């Protein structure tokens, strides 16, 4: 339950710092299949439009990135035509994760990057645009330990700290970061499913299985939190660090998504925020 006096940190829109990935404007193009969206925290609500549709205030708290309008009642129709806070601005998709707390104080991530990658499948030329309106949930909100978790926590600028499925203690001057890879094989029919998972799966040995034959971009979420030192008192609204999960509701304009898949992923080139390569 919420603590009656829970001080919910004021929600400040924090645009992510400019990504420090070197541009490929000069010299040879970088042979990595990638395009990117950097987003900020848009708002915080006890809503979940995928798991608890239309039930405003019924969820644990989530941090919402991207589309400013996302709430429990969001649909493909309600999200389209709205604005968001991602770079590129064209990406008005909704992304959300459980809120992080130190004791009862919410902590917002200050680096929020969504990579769309061509890795994980042997034939990137066959990658199709992410279907408009597709909903994906990644991670296990019900994880009870390492064995049933795919979370990954590490330290930015402290590679000697071994990654873990739970929070790690990061040295002073570094930041706690988490990576989450979304499933990239689609069943070709359903934009959602009753368990919100079975319409998507992960590739096997570099290919999408026959049950989920359509290869779509691999979404990798990277969040950086202004946290280091002891992990005492750290928690997510879903529990331990192992319960880290992410939700994605795709409303990239179709043409913008298609152009990036064609120009960046299918031909294995690293693109900038505008979807252009060097």
């Amino acid at each position: 339950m919420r603590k009656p006096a829970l001080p919910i940190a004021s929600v400040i829109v924090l645009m992510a710092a400019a990504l420090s990935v070197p541009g490929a404007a000069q010299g040879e193009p970088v042979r990595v299949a990638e395009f990117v969206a950097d987003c900020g925290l848009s708002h915080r609500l006890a809503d979940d439009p995928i798991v608890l549709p239309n039930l405003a205030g019924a969820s644990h708290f989530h941090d919402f990135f991207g589309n400013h309008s996302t709430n429990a009642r969001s649909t493909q129709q309600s999200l389209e035509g709205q604005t968001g806070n991602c770079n590129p601005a064209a990406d008005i998709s909704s992304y959300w994760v459980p809120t992080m707390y130190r004791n009862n104080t919410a902590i917002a991530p200050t680096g929020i990057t969504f990579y769309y990658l061509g890795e994980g499948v042997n034939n990137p030329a066959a990658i199709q645009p992410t279907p408009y309106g597709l909903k994906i949930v990644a991670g296990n909100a019900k994880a009870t330990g390492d064995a049933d978790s795919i979370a990954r926590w590490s330290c930015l600028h402290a590679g000697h700290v071994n990654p873990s499925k739970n929070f790690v203690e990061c040295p002073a001057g570094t930041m706690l970061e988490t990576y989450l890879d979304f499933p990239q094989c689609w069943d070709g029919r359903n934009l959602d499913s009753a368990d919100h998972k079975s319409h998507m799966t992960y590739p096997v040995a570099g290919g999408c299985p026959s049950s989920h034959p359509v290869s779509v971009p691999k979404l990798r979420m990277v969040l950086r939190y202004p946290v280091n030192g002891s992990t005492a008192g750290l928690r997510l609204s879903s529990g331990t660090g192992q319960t880290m999960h992410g939700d994605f509701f795709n409303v990239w304009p179709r043409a913008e998504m298609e152009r990036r898949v064609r120009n960046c992923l299918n031909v294995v080139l690293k693109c900038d925020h505008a979807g252009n390569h060097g």
Partner: protein
Amino acid sequence: MTALLLAGLLLPACQQEPPPPPQNSYGATERAFVELAIATDEQALKLVELDDNPALIENRKTELAELRKLLDAPYVNHHAGHDMPGMPTDAEIQLASTSPDALKQFVHAHLTESLDVLRSAGAAITHPPTAEVVDLMERHRAAELAAG
């Protein structure tokens, strides 16, 4: 491969949201509410049993029985271990077992927070049998809060 390419070409015509369920049916919102309410009441039952309050215990048990009748598939607890409104956590139940003040505070928080969720559900749910259970649960909480 040819089939895959063809599938790719045909994709735009196939991409459909699941068709909206007919009005007044047991749809995604109802299913989500029932699963959430069962998870909440199961935790709440552990809490109110500490209070030895027969009315609260009986009401939660009645609600759980009515909620389970609405399920259209085997129940899965999607919310175990989460910090959901109105749902006492295991840590809170543990604390309440040793502190009467904490118990009183957590029972009150359970009632007020779950009442907020029920009001939200009442505005969203169109399936009459589910709406009846929402009404029952709202009435229970209103009476329980009034009884102090």
